[in-house]
């Protein structure tokens, strides 16, 4: 039998995680290993690097680290990903939020900003733009630059527009963009309502109080203990009766936090903070 040599062993992956923490200050030790390994292998294959080469450049080449970070943090995102989620948000949460004076939203793990702008569009169409503000955060500074620009290729916009249609919103996605040549830019009135900044869910603390936190398809990259730690951060960052939105295949597993949140929509994983 042809037993393939292990290209990246469990120990080697741990070694890389330690090294990254020591040299670059990013802690991936509680990240889901299956996914992390796949990302690291991808880099090694693309760069044709063996494990020791990779270790060497990670220590000695600061510029390479940004490239590495871009690759291992998954930055695949869409506007109105899971249209049924946005539909639920519109029907079940927006009417509630509209009674507030100010609506502060945290889009955690926002990557290139698609989710943050989707929320901005939703609030805008509900007539709540002037009293809402969206904070988009991510650990990747390059992605945040993209988010601030708010420029997306027409090819992407076309697929986002399809999502938008499925979400049941009444307008048209392109109403919110200025289209030039092969790219679309988010209207500046929406950009004025957003702020994108660095925040690491693993190591950074509360920075504001929110009526809504959306953190979708980020928890899937974390091990259970880290998920619980971040749930604590979210719980403490939510205003009383604030809403927490998770990805449609993610769920609150910790018994402690199951008791602290009320399920608003079990299919779309929308929760509300219970005040005890």
């Amino acid at each position, binding site marked *: 039998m042809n037993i393939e040599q292990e290209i990246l062993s469990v120990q080697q992956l741990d070694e890389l995680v330690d090294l990254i923490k020591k040299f670059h200050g990013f802690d991936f030790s509680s990240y889901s290993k299956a996914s992390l390994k796949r990302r690291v292998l991808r880099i090694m294959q693309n760069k044709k690097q063996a494990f020791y080469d990779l270790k060497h450049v990670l220590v000695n080449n600061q510029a390479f680290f940004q490239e590495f970070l871009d690759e291992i943090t998954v930055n695949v995102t869409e506007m109105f990903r899971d249209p049924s989620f946005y539909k639920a948000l519109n029907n079940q949460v927006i009417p509630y939020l509209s009674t507030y004076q100010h609506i502060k939203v945290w889009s955690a793990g926002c990557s290139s900003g698609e989710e943050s702008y989707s929320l901005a569009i939703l609030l805008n169409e509900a007539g709540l733009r002037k009293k809402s503000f969206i904070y988009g955060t991510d650990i990747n500074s390059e992605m945040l630059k993209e988010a601030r620009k708010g420029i997306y290729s027409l090819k992407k916009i076309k697929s986002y527009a399809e999502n938008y249609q499925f979400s049941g919103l009444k307008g048209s996605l392109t109403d919110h963009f200025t289209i030039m040549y092969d790219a679309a830019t988010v209207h500046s009135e929406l950009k004025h309502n957003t702020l994108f900044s660095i925040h690491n869910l693993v190591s950074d603390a509360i920075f504001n109080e929110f009526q809504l936190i959306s953190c979708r398809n980020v928890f*899937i990259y974390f091990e259970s203990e880290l*998920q619980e730690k971040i749930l604590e951060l979210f719980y403490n960052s939510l205003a009383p009766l604030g809403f927490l939105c998770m990805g449609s*295949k993610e769920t609150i597993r910790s018994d402690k936090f199951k008791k602290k949140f009320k399920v608003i929509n079990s299919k779309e994983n929308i929760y509300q903070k219970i005040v005890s």
Partner: protein
Amino acid sequence: MSLDNNIITRWQQSEYLLIGGSAGSFKLIFNIVKNLNANLNKAVIIVIHRKKNFFSEIEKLFAENSRISLREITDKEVVNKNTIYIAPANYHTLIERDGSFALDVSEAIWYSRPSIDVTFESASDVFDGKCTAILLSGANQDGAEGLLKLRNKGCLTIVQDPEDAEMPQMPLAAIEIDAAEYRLSSAEIFELLKT
């Protein structure tokens, strides 16, 4: 029919059954699900290529026709025996060393998310050869590389006979890189799974 003792023994010793299918595999997977023994004593993980945003009743339809409990995978859920797991649309499904599922929304592979390769490769890391994997009809080459990795780890790897498959490309891609230990017709697959 041509099932030898080796394939039967290794199937019976498997703790996991992985099934990957794409175009032309739906009816076959439905019938496999319908015919699996109630006391199978294995975990079954099914990855079918499916479009996002199309409201799908696959899980409901399958569950109504299965003798074993069947569910769509949720992140961090632990893989249990006597359960059929369906990979959700628009996510890749991976398996952690502790025997739980991990989902991932990274780039589509062969235009597919879920990708069969991703699940098979990840399973090859953790299932230690105690696994049977079947790659069925499909119009691209997803699953072939993953099947090879499983074979290299000592798993029992089977493709649907391309002549029997509605879309032969996927099984053919696996045969081309020598990822399949056996090629079986759908009738033979049913016979094996019944033993």
